[in-house]
């Protein structure tokens, strides 16, 4: 099979992995080709609106496992292909030279055995980093069940590594992915966390030289949403734990796209995109807005409101904290106001040293006044609804929303 044929099969097979970022690493490379840019760069956007940053392919989709939710499971009749390390390295370099991509996202089905697959991935990385002197971004998947020594070796040449959890509880895992176990997923994650921490402490090695870099852009993972009966609370608690105990950089959520007729899986007509979106919003609230999972959801309300974003929802349930005076509120308080983001909160803190903040200035600082006005006062002026009644405001926001969309559709102003 030629490269083009393989690319069609192996890019198609990798597309359900949603991790896309190329950020968190900064590498200079004075002699070879390529460097890593700290903020990450998107190179294109596909017709589903997701960005393309890395050449995301599987090394092989010839997998020996039979996980029910996966397009590449052994029992399905699909064309199978496997790259050679030379082929894939060459393709990466040639795409990179044309500025198509930011680097490589290297994943694979389990080809022959976990260690066998991991060795192929390592070979590809060695070719890229040493022969081609490639300094661009590389994200590598850990093949569950592979030897820790191989993981360590790969870690020296890659910017980010990830182990996909996929299913949020052990019960679901046993049901849908019988060849994987919670242990086989968490062990490599723990191992990576430990090695990354050691490396960041910068333990000098032999003769006081700095340790070689190990996965400088950290570790991430992915969870599938909607394939199993777990509620949002379970998913969000898991993420919270992963961020605090495993030091993960990102948890990705992937709305389950129906890929099989297995009776164990739900029959969905469309992927639960809205739910995925709410989880991402909540994830951001955990990482950048200093929220806790327990503030957003609890046992009585284990799911997010699909019609209202988690932050507005929180604000409405805690309406007694509002309105907040923007000229006086602390940074933490500002972050909790719907319509104010991290950037605008920071700008407000800087701006109010020299200015009295008015609604007009607030809007020029990037605040969404239409949303924020119900929760703030500007120098004593309040423009929102005077009753401050939760139900009333909730109705108001829902009505606002339905002006643009009919129920059940995605929230987009311009539909093609």
């Amino acid at each position, binding site marked *: 099979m030629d*490269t*083009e044929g393989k*690319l*069609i*099969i192996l*890019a*198609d097979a*990798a*597309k359900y992995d949603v991790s896309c970022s190329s950020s968190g690493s900064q590498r200079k*490379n*004075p*002699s*070879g*080709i*390529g*460097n890593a*840019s700290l*903020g990450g*760069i*998107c*190179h*294109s*956007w*596909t*017709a*589903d*609106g*997701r*960005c*393309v*940053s890395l*050449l*995301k*392919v599987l090394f092989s989709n010839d997998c020996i496992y039979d996980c029910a939710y996966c*397009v590449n499971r052994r029992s399905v009749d*699909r064309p199978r292909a496997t790259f050679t390390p030379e082929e894939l390295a060459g393709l990466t370099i*040639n*795409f990179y*030279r*044309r*500025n*198509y991509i*930011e680097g490589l996202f290297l994943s694979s089905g389990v080809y022959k055995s976990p260690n066998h697959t991991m060795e192929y991935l390592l070979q590809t990385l060695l070719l890229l980093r040493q022969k081609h002197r490639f300094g661009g971004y590389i994200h590598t998947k850990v093949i569950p069940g592979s030897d820790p020594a191989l993981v360590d070796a790969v870690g020296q040449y890659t910017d980010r590594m990830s182990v996909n959890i996929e299913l949020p509880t052990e019960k679901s895992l046993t049901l849908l992915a019988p060849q994987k176990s919670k242990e086989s997923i968490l062990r490599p994650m723990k191992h990576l966390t430990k090695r990354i921490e050691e490396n960041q402490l910068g333990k000098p090695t032999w003769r006081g030289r700095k340790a070689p870099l190990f996965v400088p852009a950290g570790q991430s993972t992915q969870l599938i949403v909607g394939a199993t009966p777990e509620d949002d609370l379970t998913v969000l608690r898991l993420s919270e734990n992963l961020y605090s105990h495993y030091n993960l950089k990102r948890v990705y959520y992937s709305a389950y*796209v*129906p890929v099989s007729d297995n009776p164990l899986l739900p029959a969905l007509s469309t*992927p639960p995109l809205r739910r995925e979106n709410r989880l991402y919003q909540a994830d951001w609230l955990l990482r950048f807005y200093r929220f806790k999972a327990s503030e957003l959801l609890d046992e009585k309300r284990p799911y997010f409101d699909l019609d209202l974003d988690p932050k507005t929802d929180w604000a409405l349930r805690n309406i007694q904290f509002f309105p907040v005076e923007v000229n006086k509120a602390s940074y933490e308080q500002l972050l909790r106001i719907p319509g104010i983001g991290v950037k605008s909160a920071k*700008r407000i803190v800087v*701006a109010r*040293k*020299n*200015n009295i903040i008015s609604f007009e*200035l607030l809007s*020029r*600082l990037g605040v969404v006044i239409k949303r924020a006005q119900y929760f703030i006062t500007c120098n004593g002026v309040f423009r929102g609804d005077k009753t401050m009644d939760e139900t009333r405001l909730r109705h108001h926001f829902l009505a606002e929303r339905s002006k643009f969309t009919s129920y059940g559709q*995605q929230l*987009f*102003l*311009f*539909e*093609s």
Partner: protein
Amino acid sequence: MIIYSYDSTFDGLLCTIFEASLRQLRPENIIRRFQEREQQNLFQTIHVGTRPKIAGAVYTLLKERGGQEALTTAYYAFHGEFPQIDMAIFNYLEMVWKRGKEAQTLFSNESVLQTLDAQRRVSRERHMFCGILRFKDLGGIFYAPIAPEHYILPLLGNHFAHRMADQNWVIHDTGRGKALIYDQRCWYETDFHLQKSLNVPQGEKEYQKLWKTFFNSVTITSRRNKGLQKRNMPMRYWRYLTEMDDSISLTPPRFTDPKDDND
């Protein structure tokens, strides 16, 4: 009441600041030399010559007062295509001179806000082009045409010189007739026009096809959302995108997912 005109370089703009402080005379407006004819002669126009030494001195002084960030802001804003931006930058730099680092937080000052806004938009477009610029290998020289809204061309030089350090490249702003040329040592800017249409080698076409193939196969059809695509990547940027080039035809897929409705 006077107007300063300068040669539309950043150095020139810095010289107008020196000129103004020397004469103790604030200009009513600052224009670029090619705009002179558009102006009515109600005001007296003074041509300010560009002297690199003076520009350098002004730069150093401002940097001491306001820090590198203040000057970078001005430099980025300067490359934006906004009406009256020169005067705004002039006022902004005056603020930097008077108030130092604090100048960047004076959001209630119209000129400061205008400059910060311009800087934000220019740097956003620059970042966009770091991603969506596409090189074609014309046999040892990598050529990339771009058509940005703002004059971001010179702001791309260092990024690509660091990244594509071991290849010769040309980035061509087709709308403005300018190009950056890099020869594996350093890059410079020059006037640039293509005499005839480019001859794209067969090998290059193969890679273009591979890229378009990849681009199409990573789309998840059940999540199709053209609106989101256009919001993230406005159509005005599609002109030179290899993956959006309809003249590149693909081999019909030998295999399709039964769940995907092809389009």
